[in-house]
């Protein structure tokens, strides 16, 4: 009888400590964390020819000669952007003065190219959110194809959480080469 009571007490204590941790892990470690990734759906869409980062000449099988337009949206630290994202969504997107839902256009004057065995692409200018106030911390930017039906996701990029007050948030692009470009396929 005494042994059973101790077991019950042990279980109760274990649950007492385990439950908060489980809740914490579920809320903050598993469900609500942004992560850096090339979206898995994007990989499939490349094979399907769903994205055009650069213009191409008309040829026997492809007649689309214009490139798509891309946008960059910011997400709160409470978001869950990552490899599983398939399209832009406003859920957990930042909001504030002078920030328009959907984010800003990505300047794309440089077509994808290759070096060695790696193909790569980087926006040709910094991504800039001008004179905004974003008071709730954010730590992720989603690049997506705003010309596609459904705003197909390309990639998510994370950084240390930030806020901005009546200021400009600038994401300076990395060097557009096979080692540093924003999107690379080796």
């Amino acid at each position, binding site marked *: 009888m005494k042994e059973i009571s101790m077991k019950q007490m042990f279980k109760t204590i274990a649950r007492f400590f385990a439950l908060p941790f489980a809740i914490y892990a579920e809320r903050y470690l598993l469900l609500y964390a942004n992560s*850096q*990734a*090339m979206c898995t759906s994007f*990989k499939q869409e490349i094979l399907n020819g769903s994205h055009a980062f650069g213009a191409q000449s008309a040829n026997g099988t492809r007649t689309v000669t214009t490139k798509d337009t891309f946008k960059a949206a910011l997400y709160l630290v409470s978001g869950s952007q990552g490899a599983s994202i398939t399209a832009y969504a406003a859920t957990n997107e930042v909001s504030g*003065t*002078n920030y328009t839902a959907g984010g800003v256009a990505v300047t794309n004057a440089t077509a994808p190219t290759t070096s060695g065995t790696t193909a790569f692409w980087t926006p040709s200018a910094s991504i800039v959110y001008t*004179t905004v*106030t974003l*008071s709730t911390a954010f730590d992720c930017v989603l690049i997506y194809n705003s010309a596609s039906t459904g705003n197909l996701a390309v*990639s*998510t*990029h994370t*950084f*240390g959480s*930030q*806020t*901005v*007050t*009546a*200021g*400009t*948030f*600038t*994401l*300076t*692009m*990395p060097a557009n080469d096979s*080692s*540093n*470009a*924003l*999107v*690379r*396929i*080796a």
Partner: protein
Amino acid sequence: MAKISVQLTPDSPITEMDESELVKTVNVIDNPVEHTVETIYHLKSNPNAEWAVHKSVDMKLKIPAVFADGAVAGFL
């Protein structure tokens, strides 16, 4: 002096002030993930206030961003 966009309180609209009326702080964050420069202004009349009237962020990601490893199957 340059004009700086400011927000005097969390609920007030964005306006401009002369930089001479403000105290400027520059924070540099440099770690394996990013190189970030935060430019922060407080009112000269209240330089230690918790609320900064202006904060701009210039960030450059340093870690290799997004990388996909293309692979094909062989027939051997």
